[in-house]
Structure formats: structure tokens, C-alpha cells
């Protein structure tokens, strides 16, 4: 009977209990300055605090992972930036190396012009090389005085004789190198003034030449310097042509075979002079 009544009016008594407890707690808490949570409240706080510790551990782990990810992204961005910087510096280094090498070549050319004040020189730049197996020809772009350059004029570099101009087209000239089979330059062995004619061998893999018509009785040695003789009027005298790299002496015949390694490295030739005149 009591429980039936309790059940029937459960909302009403629940409301009554609710209001009474609420105001009771309100009054109790008003008397005490320090708030209280009760025994059950204390248990709830402990349980929640434990859960907070767990989630704190989890969120700290997540936070660390996120920080690592952010660091990784930053490192990646910095890596990209440094790679770009490295590429730029490499390119700059290569360019500066080229400038330094060009500077050394130009210094040598200036030294050459100082050493040969009697020669009128027109600077030119090598723009292409003929690499056929039979002919050794270079194409030049003339920097100045293109009108003064004529076919047949000698071409030299700071290292020595390069060849002669075969043809001129506007600002461009074609040069037959001293190692071309069609080239023939009157030369002397500097040490004993033995005379011969330098002819290109036109070999496939080397820029070698030989001295033809060098008498067998002229004693020459490997390492002897070969210079132009000035005969024939094309090349000025005493320009370095190369050095003897091999001598083949036979017991018969008038002449001996001498191979000359050119003083000019034709494979790396970049700047040259065209000799347009000479003050004798």
C-alpha cells in the first residue's frame, strides 16, 4: 500500500526531495565558506581525476606526435630551401670557376701581346670545331676588325701557333689548324735551327703533326722545341709550334721522321688571335 502510493506520486515526492535537498545544501554551503563535495562527490572527483590523468597521457602523446609532425614539415621545408640554396651556390661556383679560368686565359693572352709587340693582333673566340677524322678545322667568331681579317692570315694563341685563316664570312672565320693534313708550316728546331716543314697527321684521336723534310744528319731529340722559321712570309718567326715527341731515325734515306706534339691544346682552345700584320 505504502509502496503503491510512493510509486503513484513518485514525481511529486521526487520534486519535494529535490527542492528540499537543493535549498538545504544552499543553506549549508552559505554557512561554510569552504565549499564541500561530500563523500560521493569526493569519490567522483577521484575517479574523474584518474581519467584525466589517462587522457592527459594520451593527449600528451598526441601532442608529441603532432609536434614531431610539425618539426618534420619544418625540416622538410628547410631541406627544400637548403637544396635550392645549394643548387644556386653550385651554379655560382661553376660560373666563378669559368670566370677564373677565363681570367687566366686572358692574362696569358695579355702576356702574349706584351711578348710580341710587333704583331698586330685581332682577338677572336672559338665557337665550333670540326671533328672529322680527316680535317682539323675550327670556326671563329671575330670580336673586332672583321674587315681586316683575310684568308691566309696566321692564327695564334698564347701557347703558340694554331693555324691559318681559310675563309672569312662576315664576322666569322674558318681556320685550318696546324695539325690539319692540308697545313704546311716552315719550322725550325729551336735548339740547333734544323729546318723542316710541319704537316698535320690528321689522326682520329690526337692532334699530332710531323716534321717533313728534316735531314737525317740533323740531330734532334725528344723534347726539343719547334718554332716557326718565318720563311714563306705567312707566319712570323720564332712562334712556338710544339715539342718533339718521337724521333724515328733510319740508316737509309735523306730525311728522318719526327713527330711533334703541338704546344696548343686544340681540344681546349677558346680564345685566339688573328695576326693581321707585323711591324718589321
Amino acid at each position, binding site marked *: 500500500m505504502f509502496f503503491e502510493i510512493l510509486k503513484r506520486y*513518485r514525481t511529486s515526492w521526487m520534486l519535494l526531495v529535490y527542492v528540499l535537498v537543493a535549498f538545504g545544501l544552499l543553506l549549508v*554551503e*552559505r554557512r561554510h565558506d569552504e*565549499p564541500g563535495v561530500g563523500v560521493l562527490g569526493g569519490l567522483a572527483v577521484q575517479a574523474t581525476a584518474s581519467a584525466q590523468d589517462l587522457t592527459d597521457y594520451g593527449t600528451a602523446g598526441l601532442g608529441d606526435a603532432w609536434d614531431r609532425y610539425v618539426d618534420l614539415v619544418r625540416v622538410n621545408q628547410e631541406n627544400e630551401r637548403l637544396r635550392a640554396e645549394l643548387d644556386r651556390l653550385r651554379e655560382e661556383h661553376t660560373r666563378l670557376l669559368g670566370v677564373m679560368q677565363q681570367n687566366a686565359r686572358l692574362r696569358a693572352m695579355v702576356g702574349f701581346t706584351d711578348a710580341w709587340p710587333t704583331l698586330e693582333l685581332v682577338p677572336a673566340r672559338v665557337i665550333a670545331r670540326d671533328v672529322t677524322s680527316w680535317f682539323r678545322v675550327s670556326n671563329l667568331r671575330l670580336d673586332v676588325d672583321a674587315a681586316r681579317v683575310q684568308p691566309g692570315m696566321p692564327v695564334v694563341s698564347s701557347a703558340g701557333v694554331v693555324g691559318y685563316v681559310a675563309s672569312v664570312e662576315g664576322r666569322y672565320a674558318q681556320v685550318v689548324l696546324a695539325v690539319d693534313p692540308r697545313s704546311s708550316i716552315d719550322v725550325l728546331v729551336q735548339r740547333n735551327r734544323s729546318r723542316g716543314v710541319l704537316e698535320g697527321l690528321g689522326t682520329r684521336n690526337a692532334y699530332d703533326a710531323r716534321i717533313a723534310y728534316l735531314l737525317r744528319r740533323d740531330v734532334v731529340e725528344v723534347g726539343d722545341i719547334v718554332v716557326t722559321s718565318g720563311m714563306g712570309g705567312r707566319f712570323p718567326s720564332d712562334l712556338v709550334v710544339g715539342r718533339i715527341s718521337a724521333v724515328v731515325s733510319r740508316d737509309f734515306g735523306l730525311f728522318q721522321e719526327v713527330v711533334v706534339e703541338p704546344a696548343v691544346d686544340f681540344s681546349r682552345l677558346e680564345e685566339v688571335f688573328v695576326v693581321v700584320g707585323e711591324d718589321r
Partner: protein
Amino acid sequence: MFTAISLSAGLALVVLSSVFAGHVNESVAWPSAVVIAVVYASVFRDGFGALLTAFCLGLLSAALVGGARGPMLLALLPVVALTMGARGRLQLQSVWGAVGWVVPMSLVFDLVFVSVMALFQPSASVGARFVVQAPVTALLSGLFALPYIALLARVEPLLREQQERTTFLGT
């Protein structure tokens, strides 16, 4: 049984909310989990269930915030009364209806709570924070109420159907 379900879900929500609120800066507004749970109970339960839920969750919430059990219980009382009074007229017994109702009820709860605190415990100055935080709290409560109410509204009919089937087979 269903009162126990909504009460348990409310307890879980309040505890979880408290746990995660511990990781948030106290100046940041935080959804009122107790209002969400009490609104749900008031919409979908009878008066006894709603009052019981409000009573238990009010005491728990007060314990978790370090006191003020009286103001907490008193502030939840109008939430229960207004929700039960309005649920028939405003057709709150749908997910969106209940979720939308959480927002004004959160404001009512904060207003009553602050008023009671001002009347009975003037030393606890919470009035200034009410103006700033109550609207944001209300909006966040509405936002967080959506998954909670949608989940319970989906689970409870399944449980009810299962219970009816068991009862039918038992008889």
C-alpha cells in the same frame, strides 16, 4: 530501465566532459554537459526520470567543479520544468527539436545559476563571466548535444523493441 539508461549516459557525458575540460584553458567556454543530459531526460522521460537525472547529475557536476551543489540543483530545476512544459507544445521529441532546445536551456541554466550564486554566495563573483561565456557555452552545448541526443535517440528504440519482444515471448 530507460531512466537508468539516460541517467548512465548522462553520468558518462558529464564525466567525459569534465575529463576533457581539464585539458582546456579555463578561459575557453565549454559545453554544459549536465544541461544536455537533463534536457534529453526531460524531453524523453517522465517527470520522475527527469528530476532523478537532474538531481544525480547536478550533484555530480557540483562535485566535479568543487562545490555549489545547492545552486546547481536549483539552476537545473527550471530547465526540467520549462522543458517538460514545452515539449508537447513545441514538439521537442525529435533529435533536432531537442538539440535546438538545449541552447536556450543552457542560457536559462547559466542565468539561474549565476543569480542564485549572487544571492546566496556573493563572494563568488561569476556575473561578469556569465555575460561573456554564457552565449558561447549555449551554442557549444547545442553543438555537442547533437551527437549525444542522436545516439541515444537511435539506441533507445532498438532497446525498447528488444524489450517488447522479450516481454512478448515471455508471456
